[in-house]
């Protein structure tokens, strides 16, 4: 785990679920999950809060790589993961509820990706 800047840590894929379990066991709440696409890679940032404290964990994955779902640990992640999948085309594996790109019912495929990145 590498600290990118204050409160943002870069993690590897294998570290994700242990980190999530640790947060859950310590009663941290899921604040948000944010997906961004930069330099040909997805950046997925998981934010957790406990009181006023905040911790962000960033996972960087290749375009065609899958990201493990955390929705079986944090049910609140269901909407965030479906949103990332629908807007950015991020492959999230083993989602508790897969809405099949019908969360926002958008006609365009992966609308938040630039044409050149699709």
């Amino acid at each position: 785990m590498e600290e990118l800047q204050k409160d943002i840590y870069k993690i590897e894929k294998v570290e994700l679920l242990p980190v999530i379990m640790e947060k859950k066991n310590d009663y941290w709440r899921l604040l948000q999950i944010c997906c961004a696409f930069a330099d040909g890679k997805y950046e997925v940032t998981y934010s957790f809060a406990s009181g006023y404290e905040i911790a962000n964990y960033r996972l960087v994955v290749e375009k065609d790589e899958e990201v493990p779902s955390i929705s079986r640990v944090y049910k609140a992640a269901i909407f965030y993961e479906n949103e990332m999948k629908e807007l950015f085309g991020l492959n999230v594996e083993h989602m508790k509820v897969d809405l099949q790109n019908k969360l926002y019912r958008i006609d365009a495929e992966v609308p938040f990706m630039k044409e050149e990145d699709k």
Partner: protein
Amino acid sequence: MPKRSIVPFGPQHPVLPEPIHLDLVLEDEKVIEAIPSIGYVHRGLESLVTKKDFNEMVYVTERICGICSFMHGMGYSMAVEKIMNVEVPRRAEYLRTIWAEMSRIHSHLLWLGLLADAFGFESLFMQSWRLREKILDMFEISTGGRVIFSVNKIGGVLKDMPADMLNQFVSILNDMEKDLRATTKVFLEDYTVKSRLVGVGILTKEDAIRRGAVGPMMRASGIEVDMRKTGYAAYNDIDFELITSKECDSYGRCCVRIDEIFQSIEIIRQAVKKIPDTELSATVKGFPNGEAFVRLEQPRGEAFYYVRANGSKFLDRMRVRTPTFANLPALTQTLQGCQFADVPLLILTIDPCISCTER
């Protein structure tokens, strides 16, 4: 064994101000499961950052919501200001605080009206919205708008409120407080109102954390978190107590919101007393480069803004996690086990804003 059936609820329903659909799995009149779906008003405003100048985006973010429009502009501005290390003048911070608290009063009064309407108390609905009208008038006097205000900018605010206007507002709020006491007393003490709220839609403290609830929904489950206590804008100069409830039910959520109305009035009074005489905005030069996140307390709860900039006038990414988006999983939790007749009321207790949620 009771018969199971699925009842579609929404997106068009008398109690829903905005479209959301729920598939309710029922056993007789008892809700076993609720599966929400949205997607009727998605606009993709976040993706406009790659096409619009970062200064113009303040006005786009305001259009995320018609109720907390001011706070969306403020949250976005704060995130860009954080990246650019802009020191916002104290008067602008105070003005932002005053407008934010006015937004909170008007949002909570709107909610109280909708709640009264949901259980068929029409006169109470009209009284709540009559009071809310005064806040909208104050917005119109100070900003020129009643829904979209366009007073935020990167580095400060565009409009000032002179001393006589601020004093006039305090006087309006003082007069309003008496009417508010009378109206909110009905919500808190009336037998019929309490019979619809007390013990309905329980969300325990543990469930609120597990489901990521925010704002009054979370505080009504006994969790002491209010982002204003982190001291953004002028809140570090304001003395106020955190409002919570241990009821964990719809009545507790109602109590928290009502108490917050009076608290907001007090915050405005303090802000008017302490407001310094400085510039309204700082000079902003260059383009933002870097990333920042900001959390602030909207009327419906904690909102999260993430901005990533690349040194040009267009941003790479903007993310707004609105309070209703965070409260949807908690809503499904409160619906489990409730009576079918309580569903409209329970949807309202999260104070849903679907246009915020879908952005």
